[in-house]
């Protein structure tokens, strides 16, 4: 029997890939294609995909389509929208970045769109094979994007990312095989049902849990699978780092939540210690190692590791509560990190010139706007009210305490104090030191406007989180 083909729930991906191919061909056929036009088409594609996602909010068809391969739930809608927002801002950043550095190639736009399609697909994938496919689509695109510049660091980062990423993919695939061996299916709902009915030894299933967790932990940069993060974040062109840090984190966590809360829901008690350990290691190691960094991109990379830990603290509460808190954290994290890397891009002025923390000396004098925005993002990352980062932390700690993990909340709050130190250090350099040289930050207006979007979002989420928590709470239910 051929399954009923219902393509509407994957319309966002179809649009992204379609537009990606159009832009790719356009860039190849038209000599010296105008980057502005490519950007416009790509952004139109992103907006179209967003519109296609929004209309899925009130989807009345089945829970999953295409023989159970893709879910059509609100969880996927929310994750897609966050990813698409990050993609849009990433495209704007990238356009500007490559125009100034002179390394622009038309392939940038389709690659970002392909990566975005992988990210959105993984958020909706409800079959382990589809999860893996989507993971590979996004990873392969990101490997190329990381090495997009001809600088040595960029190529080196891409190589590291690729080699380690290939390992993690292998782990992941092995985990998929184990899951199939244990349950006879790769469909998440079928895996879940099979596991719920099993008695006796579940060694295979547990091995699958472990291997899949390694794969996801790699993608979300949780300790001890975070080694690639600083090098890749530092090496990749800043615009791509911005897109990658926000998009990959959201996509990988979305898939993580779906796989573990659906397929391995019967084994919750078995994988919870894993989440616990990953969370503790990530917040502690990420926060402590960030202190020693002298490069702002590496600092943000380690802070990204720590934030993965905070999100995992939220996930230590099973079910809707944990997922809702984690989703809010992901939304907040995406806007903060996009904004922060946007400022980094503008301070570098051209390419990767000035990324040491020292080069931020006196930024408040050179560009009060950029320094103010950066301070906002850093305070939000540190979790100071009234910003998105504060509410996000409150929510994850609340659900962790509610789930009985008060020790996670304790470690979390203490790690935030450690983390506050290195964010503060950047603020002190910006506001309390005199400029070291007279290199000016990039004066362009367009990327500044692009950074104002996450800045406004950071404040609005901090002051009126109720605007989105309602949506997130309804979205944080995965039925199967």
């Amino acid at each position: 029997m051929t399954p009923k083909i219902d393509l509407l729930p994957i319309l966002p991906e179809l649009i992204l890939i379609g537009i990606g191919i159009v832009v790719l061909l356009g860039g190849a056929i038209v000599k010296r294609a105008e980057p502005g036009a490519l950007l416009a088409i790509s952004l139109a594609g992103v907006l179209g995909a967003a519109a296609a996602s929004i209309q899925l909010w009130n989807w009345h068809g089945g829970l999953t389509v295409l023989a159970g391969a893709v879910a059509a739930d609100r969880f996927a809608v929310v994750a897609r929208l966050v990813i698409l927002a990050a993609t849009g801002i990433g495209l704007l950043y990238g356009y500007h970045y490559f125009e100034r550095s002179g390394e622009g190639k038309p392939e940038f736009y389709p690659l970002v769109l392909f990566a975005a399609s992988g990210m959105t697909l993984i958020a909706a994938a409800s079959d382990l094979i589809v999860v893996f496919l989507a993971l590979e689509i996004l990873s392969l695109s990101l490997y190329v994007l990381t090495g997009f510049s001809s600088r040595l660091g960029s190529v080196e980062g891409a190589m590291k990312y690729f080699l380690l990423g290939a390992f993690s993919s292998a782990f992941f695939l092995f985990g998929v095989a184990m899951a199939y061996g244990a349950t006879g299916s790769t469909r998440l709902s079928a895996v879940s049902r099979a596991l719920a009915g099993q008695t006796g030894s579940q060694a295979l299933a547990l091995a699958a849990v472990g291997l899949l967790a390694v794969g996801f932990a790699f993608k979300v940069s949780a300790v001890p699978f975070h080694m690639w993060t600083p090098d890749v974040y530092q090496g990749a062109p800043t615009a791509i780092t911005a897109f990658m840090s926000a998009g990959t984190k959201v996509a990988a966590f979305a898939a993580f939540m779906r796989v573990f809360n659906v397929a391995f829901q019967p084994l919750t008690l078995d994988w919870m210690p894993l989440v616990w350990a990953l969370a503790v290691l990530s917040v502690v190691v990420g926060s402590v190692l960030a202190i020693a960094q002298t490069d702002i991109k590496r600092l943000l990379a380690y802070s990204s590791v720590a934030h993965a830990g905070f999100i995992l603290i939220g996930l230590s509460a099973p079910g809707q509560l944990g997922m809702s808190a984690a989703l809010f954290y992901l939304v907040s994290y995406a806007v903060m990190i996009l904004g922060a890397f946007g400022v980094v891009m503008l301070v570098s002025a051209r390419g990767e010139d000035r990324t040491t923390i020292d080069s931020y000396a006196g930024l408040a004098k050179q560009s009060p706007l950029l320094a103010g925005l950066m301070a906002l993002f850093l305070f939000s990352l540190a979790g100071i009210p009234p910003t998105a980062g504060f509410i996000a932390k409150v929510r994850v700690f609340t659900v962790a305490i509610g789930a009985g993990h008060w020790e996670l909340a304790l470690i979390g709050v203490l790690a935030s104090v450690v983390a506050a130190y290195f964010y503060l250090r950047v603020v002190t350099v910006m506001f309390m030191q005199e400029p070291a040289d007279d290199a000016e930050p990039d004066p362009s207006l367009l990327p500044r406007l692009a950074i104002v979007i996450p800045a406004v979002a950071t404040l609005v989420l901090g002051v009126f989180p109720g605007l989105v928590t309602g949506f997130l709470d309804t979205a944080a239910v995965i039925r199967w």
Partner: protein
Amino acid sequence: MAWLSIVIFLPLVGIPVLLLWRGMTDTHARILAMVVMVADFVIALGALGAFDPTRSGYQLVEQVPWVRSVGLSYLVGVDGFSIWLVVLTTFMMPVALISSWSVTHKVRMYMGLSLLLETVILGSFCALDLLLFFVFFEAMLVPMFLVIGIWGSNRRVYASVKFFLYTMLGSAFILLATLFLYFKTGQQFDHASFDIRQMEQLSLAAITQRWLFVAFFVGFAVKVPIFPLHTWLPDAHTEAPTYGSIVLAALLLKAGPYGILRFNLDLFPEASRYFATSIEVLAVIGIVYGAIVAMMQTDVKRLVAYSSVSHMGFIMLGIFSLTPEGVSGAVVQMVNHGLSTGLLFFCIGMLYERTHTRDMAEMGGIADVTPWIAASFVVATLSSIGLPGLNNFVGEFLVILGTFSVDRVLGAVAVLGVILSAIYMLWAYQRTFQGKAPERLRGLSDMLPREFAAVIPVVAVMVFIGIYPKVVLDRVNPTTAGVVRWVRSVHVDQTGLPGGLRAVVQPAYTPPEDVAVAGTVRASRGTP
């Protein structure tokens, strides 16, 4: 009328103007901030007028649901404690602003941060929702951090980071305890909330209460600061610009004892009794230690900073005497310390602006040159050492009275602190002002009109409270009586340490109708 919301958020009105008005000069910015702050003071006086002095519960309460899914609401109100801190804040902010009138570096940002700071301080004194309080409490750090770090003196960056991290570390425990209480309200009532009126009715096992008490206490103790958590204070006070020192000493520090009065005593009465003696001992150590270290200083600003450690010890002592006199005295003392230390820092700021030194030896004899500054300093000094007829006398007297009624030894040591304060403050005056002025200090200007405009109101209020403290005490006493009775009334069954402490003994916080005036209720502390 939404008195409190207007008082809290009025200062923010100035910020968009500062950001958007292109042609604004520095003078415009200063005047704008000044006008807003004075207007806010007038409204705060209106709130004081609307406050019913005979009631002990929360008044002028405003409640708006804010984030329903989190149970967070915008809930503000004042009682006899916080109304005075609100008035004190709006009164001292313009005074502090005048002290920085001559700052020329990034004036607009300075004024913007001052206005922001005023809002968050007022918010933390008015919030009755625990998370809302925490938002304001934590948000205080950012503007203060920037004020110290940008406009401070040589070691400003070190001092500002230390201030930030110390306080944040303390408040991390408060956050944790807050979330735990929230979780408990969800378990025990039909919906979870951060409303402290609801949290007061939680039944918590004695051991849980004690842990939560410690978490809150550590957070607030850093802010107070209580010995041995005080080490950030001398650095922050000394390195901060005059404005920062005044706001820190007069207002920010008050958030500590205020938090303990509001949250520790109200939420954990049994634990408050349990820990009272230990905290009193720490407070007395702080009084004596602060006084002795102050005596050793050569930097006049550092001296006043350590004197704050000593004075804040008195406030803690009063609170944990858990007697009506002690608690009322502590509240009055919070206001008094704000006034007298604020004035001291103001005088030091005036001197520093003229001489560019804080070393007492280098200033020696400056009274000849600047007699009015010397006179102001004398008034502040006399107030600070508790001369009868000035404000501090009232508070210290009540605190010592309260302490004596529970523990004579601690009371006696505290009295020693008063004597020590007379020694170091008068000696500081002598070293700074008396003698023959060195040649290089000749020709410095005495107080300017704007400085008179700041000093005269402060001195007037100090004298007024000293002579007629009834105005303050009448509004404080009903609340004090309610809180003290509350803390003492809640029993704990020593054999079983069961849950259901408060819910069993007293179903809800009911303010007593009969109003005890400080000095009339006399009972010793201890498990009833």
